[in-house]
């Protein structure tokens, strides 16, 4: 029996498993710890944290859609100081690997966050969320603008001094996601996270007005999986050496494998945990079984496999 090497790397960070939580879908880990040990997954990617505490958007914040859901949370959170004081120590106590997701309203705020996190021990990587759709001003979605994206990543890079891998989280709501990907990699991103939610809307038939308090929301769940697979495939094709954390509608081992074949080095599980608190565990074991069944001896061999043509495979 062959032993499967299930480990992966994002930049210089090594993880025993390629299955992670998705930021904004696991809070800071405490809620899921009742259902599985947090150290058994690749890492906990924490909910995007801002410099100050934030209340977020008005309710209703949620609408279920066919095979998906819209959310409109608006980055509710306790602020970075409380997060560093309370959440990081808890995750370390659980022996969880930690990827901290940060979000800012300005280029400077991202740099401030990165500076505060630089000296915190036990963080494996920073996810720089430049693509949250639930902000009042679409101009603040940095990932929709090439120059703004580059400047955010450049600022974070300077603040961390290259000590900790930077993962830039991108939006699918752009004309050419590969151009934004190239831009943030040039600016110093070590890895990419694809995709954030897709901007959407539901009209309530009773009120005949937009259902969500924030009017628009981010669409997630199986409904967006093909968009995510496409985005990962396109970016991996253009930047084959840049590791990608793939996400968007993954709810079983087959979905995870699809994402890896498209070019992802790891997968994040978000909305699936809402419907199934043990989703990460089942996806992890199904993915292992599938990799072995397909004849792979390591996860790494499967990354981007869909790009190899039939001839090179038979050689």
């Amino acid at each position: 029996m062959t032993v499967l090497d299930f480990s992966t790397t994002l930049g210089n960070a090594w993880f025993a498993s390629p299955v992670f939580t998705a930021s904004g879908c696991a809070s800071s880990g405490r809620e899921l710890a009742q259902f599985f040990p947090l150290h058994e997954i690749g890492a906990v990617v924490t909910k995007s944290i801002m410099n100050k505490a934030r209340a977020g958007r008005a309710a209703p914040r949620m609408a279920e859609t066919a095979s998906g859901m819209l959310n409109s949370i608006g980055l509710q959170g306790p602020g970075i100081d409380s997060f560093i004081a309370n959440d990081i120590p808890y995750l370390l106590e659980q022996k969880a690997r930690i990827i901290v997701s940060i979000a800012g309203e300005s280029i400077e705020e991202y740099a401030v966050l990165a500076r505060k996190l630089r000296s915190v021990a036990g963080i494996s990587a920073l996810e720089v969320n430049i693509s949250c759709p639930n902000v009042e001003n679409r101009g603040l979605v940095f990932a929709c603008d090439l120059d703004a994206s580059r400047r955010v990543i450049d600022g974070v890079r300077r603040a961390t001094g290259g000590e900790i891998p930077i993962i830039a989280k991108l939006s699918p709501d752009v004309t050419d996601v590969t151009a934004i990907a190239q831009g943030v990699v040039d600016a110093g991103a070590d890895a990419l996270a694809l995709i954030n939610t897709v901007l959407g809307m539901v009209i309530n038939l009773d009120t005949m007005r937009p259902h969500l308090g924030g009017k628009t929301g981010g669409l997630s769940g199986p409904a967006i999986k093909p968009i995510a697979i496409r985005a990962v495939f396109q970016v991996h094709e253009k930047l084959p050496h840049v590791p990608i954390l793939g996400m968007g509608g993954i709810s079983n081992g087959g979905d995870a494998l699809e994402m890896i074949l498209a070019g992802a080095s790891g997968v994040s599980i978000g909305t699936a945990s809402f419907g199934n608190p043990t989703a990460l565990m089942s996806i992890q074991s199904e993915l292992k079984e599938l990799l072995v069944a397909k004849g792979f001896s390591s996860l790494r061999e499967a990354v981007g496999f869909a790009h190899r043509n039939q001839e090179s495979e038979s050689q």
Partner: protein
Amino acid sequence: MMAEINRNATQINATIVGNKRVGQYHQLIINIGEISNVCKPGNFVAINVGGETSKMILRRAFAISRVSNNSTFGGTMELIVAPFGQGSRWLCSQSEGAVLDIVVPLGNAFGIPTTPVAVLLVGGGYGSAPLFGLAEVLNARGCRVDMLLGASTAGKIYAPMEGKRSVNSLRIFTEDGSMGQLGRVTDPIATLIEDLNIAVIYSCGPMAMLAAISEITQGTDVVHQCAVEESMACGIGICMTCVLPVADELGAVSMLRSCIEGPVMDGANVLWKRVGKVI
């Protein structure tokens, strides 16, 4: 405190052992084995709906109306389900023997007075269901329990015969007068607080009813424990969608999750007028 989020919650496959129509609602009895021992009035359950190929990806949350630790099936819980939405219609169509993927118990519980005091239970629509299990617990504590139930019309009142055993009195109000007295369930509350020397009001039902009760108890010594119902995606505290604006002792307002910091909240602390607004 924070380390205990979702304590006791377990994901299990549970069998439906009873499904009966009661007026406009369904009474579902589900075998949950020994978990029934840790379920308390106020707790809820999150149920996967629609089967494996369903396009409904989110669980549905239901208040546990009552548990039984020694039924013929072992531990069971009772749910009163209104088949008004796609997910609850699917659930009500499941027959005895069907197996459900459930997460239980979730949420906090109603606080039970340490001394026997007079309490008033107020239920709107099928929100009355968990109040009957609560009445049994309060009754066993020696409390005097009086109950008010209200709905728009007779068909939406849930008041099982056996439920009346644990209450001192039960009055029903409908807005169309088709059952009980014509009027709103909140009409007699102020008078009852005085007449019966009510110490605690327990309520469960639509948000407008909970807000109206909070207005009545404002400035009095009456404690108002209400079970809120805000639409939730996960039920376990990770999605942040079911939040309500709540003030702490110092007046600081935060958006609390009704799934893990509720569903039972102190009505005096909820900022009802700011629900649905940016705080």
